[in-house]
């Protein structure tokens, strides 16, 4: 669709997907990101998803809602989602706006996010055969 640098990247690491948003996305791009990510969760049979939003300077009602939607859909598809890298100012604006990420887990950064996924999935919170859990 667009030329130039990629707006988002979705990388596969073991049974996890790491999705990074590199720049501000408009609503259409946000929707496309949601569709791509959900499609890849199915294709790669992913168990966990990390969404890195550190590059976003604004998370408004639409952005937050999209993240929640992704989290819900991923959960229904058997994957755990964690949003990482929400900037302090963005977090404050979300509170002032009255938005929350709802049931989606959040973590400070990518490392914490992966740790969270490892801990949750190893602990058997998601019912999967133990053999498919990646080594921590």
């Amino acid at each position, binding site marked *: 669709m667009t030329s130039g640098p990629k707006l988002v990247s979705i990388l596969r690491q073991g049974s996890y997907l790491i999705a990074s948003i590199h720049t501000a996305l408009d609503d259409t791009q946000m929707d496309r990101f949601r569709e791509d990510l959900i499609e890849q969760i199915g294709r790669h049979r992913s168990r966990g998803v990390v969404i890195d939003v550190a590059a976003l300077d604004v998370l408004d009602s639409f952005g937050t809602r999209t993240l929640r939607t992704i989290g819900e859909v991923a959960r229904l598809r058997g994957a755990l989602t964690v949003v990482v890298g929400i900037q302090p100012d963005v977090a404050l*604006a979300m509170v002032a706006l009255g938005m929350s990420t709802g049931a989606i887990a959040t973590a400070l950064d990518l490392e914490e996010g992966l740790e969270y996924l490892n801990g949750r999935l190893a602990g058997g919170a998601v019912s999967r055969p133990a053999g498919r859990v990646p080594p921590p």
Partner: protein
Amino acid sequence: MTGCGAEVSGTQRAYRPPVEAAETADPPVAADVHAALAAIVPIVRRIVAARVPDRSTADDLVQETLVRVLAAADRIEPGMLEPYAIVTARNVVASLWREQDRHRRNEHRMVDLLAPESPDADLLAREEQSAVAQALARLSDRERATLLAHEVSGQDTRSLAAELGSTAGAVAAQLNRARARLRVEYLLASERVEPPTDRCRPVLLALSGGDRRRQREVDAARHLLECDLCARLSQPLLQRAATREDRIRIAIGSDGDIVAARQAARELASRLGFGRTDLTLIATAVSEVARNIVRFAGSGEVVVELLDHPRRGVQVVARDTGPGISDVEQALTDGYSTYSGLGLGLPGARRLMDEFAVASEVGQGTTATMTKWCGER
């Protein structure tokens, strides 16, 4: 000078049969002159050829020399024909050089810098004239008289003020108003249109005069969204106003414009010294109101303006000509939403800013005005 030019320009004509022609023109020339002339041809040729490299030009000059010598032959003493021919040859060459030099110097004059007149230029000029005349006719007598005295006759404001029993400043202000009116009337006359509504003229006048207070009073920005004619006519009026550093307008028509609007707002507000947190709040609020425009009205505008009074701050006006909101109070209540959002658009934006007001009329559109003051909280 001209004499020289005329003389030498003769060299350009190929003078083919010098002797015969001279004979027919001047029968009494003696045969011995012809013989003497034939005798000096080689030396004339040598002299000219030594100075002029181009063969055909040299030939022309030789012919020219011979013609002159022949014409003067009866005045020359018999023995002096050769020296006379030599001097004449040198003179002819020298005047060629002068001519070339002059040509080189004046070459640039040959370029016609004026664009060729297009066939309709006359007609356009006449239309322009009649539009100006019509516009002038629509001014009041006093306005017209003052304007013409100042602009055409060159009378200064002080002497005008003395005549009118006013002050120079007041006359200048009056002139400004007259010019503003003239611009509007000129545009209307040249487009051959009458404004469709009563509001058009006051709005155009306020824009033409660059009077921001008056523009707010007549709600010029909203009218421009609603009235196609004024939107078109306002272009030249707004262009002449200096682009303002402290104000930015973003047309909202699609998703992408939401991002553009919030980034522009953040950029403008950052000049005022807002902290990162406030900038994020402002950007988020702009995002919400801009999205409301896209979702409910389809198109509109967001105007971000830096304020000095009563305090420093940034004001965001989001305007659309959409369906309007029937119950503004309800729309500002959390959880109310007519689309599948979280219902946080307007109430959310209200919480992010220090001041927030919504004016809406069903069928007319909605205007949300919100302000964040610098150094609050």
